[in-house]
């Protein structure tokens, strides 16, 4: 989130980091409202169970193991990123590890979508929420990985990671947020 107005003598890394800190937090609260709408949908439709179609015939919860793997990979992505920010010597390695974990996370998610054990085409409350919530999460994770790749690219000696480490650090919050949403979604979608 680096922004520099033209001919701006007041531009300073501290100002930049502060803007990113506040801006990231506001964004995360906004994103929380986005996901809250899906969680509200989950409990609302489950409570209504209209026409006995919350879990239509033939619908089973997907395998818990693969859901757990997806959540673990999302958490690993965030942890590796935090490690990369904390450890200047290993920044690049850890960022690559974070990206790898993130890509694997998305890969497993796609695999899960292709082997659901139920057909979302047939409708139903749970299948709808499952597709909506996990799909939205996957799209946002993919967007976050693009930014992660940008940070890797900027962490080479010619990049600006060195001067803007404080700004880059706030991106950990986004990754932890997505992992947290993934964890709650896991608990809700596979156990409730």
């Amino acid at each position: 989130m680096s922004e520099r107005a033209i001919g701006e003598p007041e531009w300073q890394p501290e100002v930049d980091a502060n803007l990113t800190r506040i801006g990231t937090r506001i964004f995360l609260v906004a994103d929380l409202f986005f996901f809250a709408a899906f969680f509200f949908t989950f409990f609302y439709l489950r409570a209504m169970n209209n026409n006995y179609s919350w879990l239509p015939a033939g619908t089973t919860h997907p395998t818990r193991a693969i859901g757990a793997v997806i959540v673990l990979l999302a958490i690993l992505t965030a942890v590796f990123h935090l490690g990369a920010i904390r450890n200047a010597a290993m920044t690049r390695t850890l960022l690559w590890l974070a990206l790898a974990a993130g890509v694997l996370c998305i890969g497993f998610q796609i695999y899960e979508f292709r082997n659901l054990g139920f057909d979302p085409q047939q409708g139903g409350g749970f299948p709808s929420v499952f597709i909506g919530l996990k799909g939205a999460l996957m799209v946002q994770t993919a967007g976050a990985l693009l930014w992660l790749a940008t940070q890797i690219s900027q962490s080479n000696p010619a990049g600006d990671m060195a001067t803007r480490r404080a700004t880059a650090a706030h991106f950990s919050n986004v990754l932890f947020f997505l992992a947290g949403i993934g964890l709650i979604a896991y608990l809700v979608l596979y156990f409730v």
Partner: protein
Amino acid sequence: MAASVTGNAQTMLTPSEQRMTVPTNIVTAIVLALVGYWAGVQIGNGFAFNDGENTGVILGYVLGSLLFLVGLGFANYPLQRLFGWHIASQPSGDEHAGVGRYLNLSLDHKVIGVQYLIAMLMAMLFGGIGAMLVRTNLLDPSTPIFPPDKYLVLVSMHSVMMIFVASAAIVGPFGNFFVPLMIGTNRMAFPRLEALSFWLVPPAIVILLAAPIFGGFQTGWTGYAPLSEQAPAGFDSYIVGFTLIGLALVTSGINMLTTIICLRAPGMTWTRLPLFVWGVFSASILGTFAAPVLAAALSMQALDRTMNTTFFISSNGGSPYLWENLFWFFGHPEVYIFILPAFGIVMELIPHFSRKPIWGYKTAVVGLLGVTLLSWFVWQHHIFVSGIAPALRPFYMLSTEMISIPTGIVFLVAFGTMWRAKISMAVPMLFCLAFLFNFLLGGISGVFLSDVPSDVTLHGSYFSMAHFHYTIVGGEIFAIVGAVYYWFPKMTGRMFNQTLAKIQFWWMFITFNSTFLPLFAAGLLDMPRRVSTYALNLQGLNDWVSISAYLLFSSMVFFAVIVIWGWFFNSEPAPADPWHARSIEWQLPTPLPRRNFARIPTFTRPPYDYGEGVPRPVIESGAEPAPA
């Protein structure tokens, strides 16, 4: 990046840098948008599940909008950083001269403000033409000129277009232009997000206008399921267009909030913020946090229409109430996104034209924040009769009526400021007074609708329609027109004809009331909203309203003529401070230089310091004036 801060753009470019010097402008944007739309339709039709063209249309709109932004140059900077290329150039608004600056991506908050203003006035024109066609159809209940499907498409297009306008028409033009000036900064927190929040609007308007190609949508702006599930592919315009506006609200909100929190000049404490900034701040809170809920609900609609999920289909485990709840959870804060910055404008202008300090500054701020807080807890008053649990109704009745308390504060502050003041009846002040009158009627009729027993009769009738037109047109649009007149000299560097503007004010004020006051009666006489035919005994009333509506429309055309004439055909430059106001934006030269402040000012006094005999603040502006 570190190098580019101090370095200059004249450095020799390496081959990888030269790759990124492909010019991006409005032409590439439009071409790429068309390519994106075509590609999206092809891809979508490739894996359409069972819903005909919905998948293709939605993907086409999304890809088209995305590539439109890429074509404008939004992707250059992120891609440069992603691939580690040296950052050779940044779009700043300085590479296009003259009118071109306003047609291309610019990161200058003043250019973005003007862009927003023009786009919003254009959208208002489209929405207004829709309203005229609707009123024409209602001239005669027995021989309508449009078939009912076309009529409902017109009603829906008018409403959604006007909702687009109302959501962004204050924070967009005036917020972007004046908030940085008022808080004393040269920059916005995230100029690229700020520009994005504007450039999402033109695709949204175009996509909405494209709806009739695919049969339009007959759902009104509420888009209630399952009617929306039956709607033809025109409803996809509603989904994508509304999502883009929602994203614009979020991006503009994040930028505004961060700017106001972090970039206030020294001495600009929270208790010295001008009230317009407070209005923008509270509206941005609502926009940033309510619009994501809309985005989620709309993505569910999109999934229902393309992927065969059943979020809103009660036969398959979904529920129409789910949409009503999600929509109004967004929808009620949304209406305060309209009105809070309008409160800000009115409370900002009244001290200047009363030549008195604002009376009860802190109370006014509490009022604005009180509305912001309460507006999260009232949404179910839109669905009192939908069959919600009866036990919920007293709570929402009480919370809704409590909104009158902070709203009453706004009136108190306005009255206290005007008390024994030296009021000059300049054009913007006339609009402020009209705002207070119109919004009073809108507010009082709102209390009728907030009470369950009376709401049972009035809900969904022309009474509620007249109520929200009184608050949105009589409130917000009057505030916008007043604000355009007030800030016109600063934004354009020209002056408008004040005599004509006064005529325009009275024309607009009288025709507005003559249009919407009779509609309260129509509602009380059992005329439901969104009908193409009505009881024969109401024809006289409706004809009166239609003719008044034409005159109201003509007053807006007159407004446009005054603005265009003053802007482009009046060669006389405006003075820097035509209103003799003491607020900071009027101490800067007109036209404003590219850099607002040569030296960031330090604030030592509260705003609106009239009558205290303090000399005007001296503000050093940027040295070089902006290219004309």
